[in-house]
């Protein structure tokens, strides 16, 4: 069933056709596809390297812990071997259990980084084992040995002949050969195994440990794992093994998989990796909320991506994949995305825009809105003169850039304020805030209202720390825009300090309470409480409160000024990608729904007048398979074929009766029978029914619901 097609050899040269070419024939009009494609690629590569760096940074803590654990356990091991008394106990294998979370897809990267780190810092002998390679102990040993030997070969830079022999060695793989190999490598005693006469770098350390990483502990068969542990614990004197388990669920799994007698051979220490939510938060922070990358996600798209993450897979890898798809789709479909690059580049490219592209700019809805806001003279100039248009576009792009910068800063400030409020009206995470801001005007939402009200009741210390944080945020940015704001905020701070000094006299608020404590009898207490209430109601605001209002109002004004949603910016189409449907279709498809609508409602796909039907009923002119499907929906779990055929032929006859008379009914019946068979076997292929053995001539339905 497999057929290979090869092009004729002379054509082969052509095979390496540029991907950019595919970019071209897609977008019909514009000529700068090459440029666009390269912008897209470079952007994607930047982002990719950035994400990898982020991942590395995040895992650093975990890896440091692991490294210290390995060092510790290994040095212990060496001590132990010297002391005979400890030899009794030294059957224990040091083991690190990494709890990695359910996002299996991200683990590969983690393990790759881990083995790199280990290789650089501790030992050249690392083997990565995956469950799918090791159905039995034999395969496991084979794999392990192969990897270890290749490891050392790689590090030693040996000649080919040696590596050849190594691969031959794979045939007789046992623990003893492994031990022999290890001895020969570490101590250079080349007596038994002739192929390993070599100077290895491992003389620097005294017998480096051999690290074996089990990538997915859960999917290993217990028997293999147990046998391996028992075997290796026998050899732990000669071969300092360290095991690392990658665990996706919880540490309980170790005890479920391994009986007590086995797990007592392990000396387990747990390590927790970073939760994927935090990982996502940093990714969003570093990728989306910077001005470093010109490409931005619209609100809906971001929402879809986050939803897929939170509700389906918890996988950062998939999030980034979705992001990549967004980038590709954006640069593919939007001809103006050529301007989606750093500001300086964009300005250059604006100058060299063609006439078609200028027309494209004029067609943008946001630009139209902008034109309508101008005076008529300018309007004419914008719509007719290309040079003037280019100038304006440059200015607008600059505005857009400034807007983005300010947006991020103010967003962070607002987050500082709202995240500490009780009940988190605007969300705990920065991404939630970002989404609400993109969605519409923040200050018109109810949540924002309540957040501000809560902010007005903040106490002083919190307020001061928050202000300080805000100042830090503003100072860290280089933009000149916020010099004034920083000054203003600093002024607030100094005022607060002054207030603090002024507040030393406590009589304003403290005195009534002191009185309260003095008075003990009930009547007086009631009276004073009432009094207190009165006074509070009409009390003049203290200086502090005045100031507090002022600060909150100021923040409010900042928000109003800078957090205008992106869609109201002119030319936002160039950098914002907002077609969520594309993403949803291609990443999170629903094949069952597609099949269902096609069967129930063929009119969606086949635009024919005859297929149009009202409500739930299906017209009898629908394709055969749709009719058969509809009829089968009306049955229970078991369907009688004869009845089904009867119903089918009735429906089809009714459809055909108008144009054919009953004379040739014999042959017609045969044809209908054949069509029915075809429809039924198609339904079987699609998985709606299966032949049933319970009754003769019946089929079983495999889906639920129906009429």
């Amino acid at each position, binding site marked *: *069933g497999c057929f290979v097609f090869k092009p004729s050899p002379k054509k082969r040269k052509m095979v390496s056709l540029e*991907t950019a070419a595919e970019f071209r024939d897609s977008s019909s009009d514009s000529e700068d596809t090459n440029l666009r494609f390269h912008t897209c690629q470079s952007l994607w590569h930047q982002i990719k390297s950035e994400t990898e760096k982020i991942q590395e940074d995040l895992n650093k803590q975990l890896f440091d812990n692991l490294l210290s654990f390995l060092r510790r356990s290994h040095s212990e091991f060496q001590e132990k071997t010297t002391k005979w008394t400890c030899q009794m106990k030294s059957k224990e294998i040091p083991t690190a259990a990494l709890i990695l979370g359910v996002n299996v*897809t991200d683990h590969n990267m983690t393990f790759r980084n881990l083995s790199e780190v280990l290789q650089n810092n501790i030992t050249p002998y690392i083997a990565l084992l995956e469950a799918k390679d090791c159905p039995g102990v034999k395969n496991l040993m084979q794999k392990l040995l192969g990897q270890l030997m290749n490891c050392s070969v790689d590090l030693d830079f040996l000649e080919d002949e040696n590596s050849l022999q190594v691969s031959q060695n794979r045939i007789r793989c046992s623990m003893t050969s492994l031990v022999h190999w290890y001895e020969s490598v570490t101590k250079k005693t080349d007596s038994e195994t002739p192929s390993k006469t070599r100077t290895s770098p491992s003389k620097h350390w005294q017998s480096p440990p051999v690290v074996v990483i089990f990538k997915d502990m859960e999917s290993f068969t217990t028997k293999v794992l147990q046998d391996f542990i028992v075997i290796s614990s026998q050899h732990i004197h000669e071969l300092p093994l360290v095991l690392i388990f990658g665990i996706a669920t919880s540490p309980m799994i170790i005890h479920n998989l391994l009986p007590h007698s086995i797990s007592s051979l392990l000396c387990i220490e747990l390590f927790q990796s970073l939760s994927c939510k935090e990982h996502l938060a940093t990714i969003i922070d570093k990728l989306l909320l910077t001005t470093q990358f010109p490409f931005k996600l619209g609100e809906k798209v971001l929402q879809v991506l986050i939803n897929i993450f939170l509700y389906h897979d918890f996988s950062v890898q998939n999030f980034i994949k979705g992001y990549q798809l967004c980038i590709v789709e954006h640069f593919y479909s939007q001809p103006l995305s050529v301007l989606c690059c750093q500001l300086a580049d964009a300005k250059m490219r604006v100058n060299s825009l063609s006439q078609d592209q200028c027309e494209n700019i004029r067609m943008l809805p946001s630009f139209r809105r902008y034109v309508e806001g101008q005076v008529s003279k300018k309007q004419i100039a914008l719509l007719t003169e290309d040079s003037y248009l280019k100038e304006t576009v440059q200015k607008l792009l600059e505005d857009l850039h400034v807007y983005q910068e300010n947006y991020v800063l103010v967003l962070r400030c607002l987050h500082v304020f709202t995240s500490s409020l009780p009940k988190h009206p605007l969300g705990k995470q920065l991404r939630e805030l970002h989404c609400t801001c993109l969605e519409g005007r923040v200050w018109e939402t109810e949540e924002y209202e309540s957040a501000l009200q809560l902010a007005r009741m903040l106490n002083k210390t919190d307020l001061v720390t928050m202000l300080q944080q805000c100042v830090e945020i503003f100072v860290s940015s280089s933009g000149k825009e916020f010099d004034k704001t920083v000054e203003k905020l600093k002024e607030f701070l100094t005022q607060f300090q002054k207030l603090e000094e002024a507040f030393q006299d406590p009589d304003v608020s403290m005195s009534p309470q002191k009185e309260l404590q003095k008075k003990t009898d009930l009547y007086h207490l009631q009276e004073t409480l009432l009094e207190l209430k009165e006074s509070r109601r009409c009390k003049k605001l203290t200086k502090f409160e005045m100031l507090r209002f002022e600060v909150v109002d100021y923040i409010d004004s900042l928000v109003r000024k800078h957090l205008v949603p992106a869609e109201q910016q002119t030319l936002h189409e160039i950098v914002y990608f907002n077609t969520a449907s594309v993403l949803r279709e291609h990443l999170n498809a629903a094949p069952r729904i597609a099949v269902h609508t096609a069967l129930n409602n063929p009119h969606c796909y*086949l635009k024919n007048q005859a297929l149009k039907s009202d409500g739930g009923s299906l017209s009898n002119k629908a*394709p055969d398979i749709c009719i058969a499907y509809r009829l089968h929906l009306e049955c229970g779990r078991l369907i009688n074929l004869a009845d089904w055929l009867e119903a089918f032929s009735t429906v089809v006859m009714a459809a055909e009766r108008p144009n054919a008379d009953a004379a040739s009914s014999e042959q017609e019946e045969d044809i209908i029978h054949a069509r029915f*068979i075809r429809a039924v076997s198609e339904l079987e292929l699609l998985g709606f029914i299966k032949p049933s053995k319970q009754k003769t001539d019946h089929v079983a339905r495999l889906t639920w619901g129906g009429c």
Partner: protein
Amino acid sequence: QQTLCGLLKKTPLDYAAEIEELNQQHETLFSKWMLQLHLGFNIVLYGLGSKRDLLEKFCTSVLQDSVYLVVNGYFPSITVRSILNSITEEVLDHTGTFHSPPEQLEFIIKRFKEDSSLELYVLIHNLDSQMLRGERSQQILAQLSSLPSIYLIASIDHINAPLMWDQAKLSLYNWLWYETTTFSPYVEETSYENSFLVQKSGSLALSSLMHVLCSLTLNARGIFRLLAQYQLEKKDNLSYPGLSFQDFYQQCREAFLVNSDLTLRAQLTEFRDHKLIRTKRGADGVEYLVIPVDDSTLINFLENEDED
């Protein structure tokens, strides 16, 4: 089956114009697919209707100048091994044999990593067919598709097809989903489907063989295996009449598969009902047992059994 086809040919296809329109709509996506394949995604097509013609069109219109492999997943005796074989033998021009599919896969991966100029488009019709839907075959295909220079386009039809992929496989496959509802009839695909409405003649297919055997007891499977092995040993002997019942009984007893003449006869009757074996009376009046399946299918079957 023949008459069925003949009858169906007579009926004109309804709504041919509309279907044509749909197909044209899908064909506009070809260049986009190529782009996305090159960027490391793989494409999976779903929707009602056969997607065979569409993929064929994709081959002829876009892929003429490159190496591509077409896999007919609906073909009932296809295995992963045959896919891997055709890659190693015809694409990589390698003649050696391999012990197991994983080893073969390793070899392929190594070759593709070494030689960056190698590019291969793999088109799989019906990735979710009976023979390819197993966990192990999917794992191997997923690993294959994760290679950056192998581009995979597959089509699925079964409504529960996505169930066969877990997170790890999905991330290896790196799918982009495309809905391509074509409404065209599944002619090729259902021609292999052993529909109960049509009594099919001809030799047994591997998939149906596996299917029947899966529902048997362990001992019954052992009995069949014994017979199959014996037949394969004797396959070069042209005058081999089959295994006589007495010898077979002896062998089964030695393997602790049956304990009496009667149980073996009952078992053989069951096989005969499913057309798994045939009995012949020899010249000397002894019953001879033969499996009426061609040898290659039998070899495939034994291999599959070994893997499980």
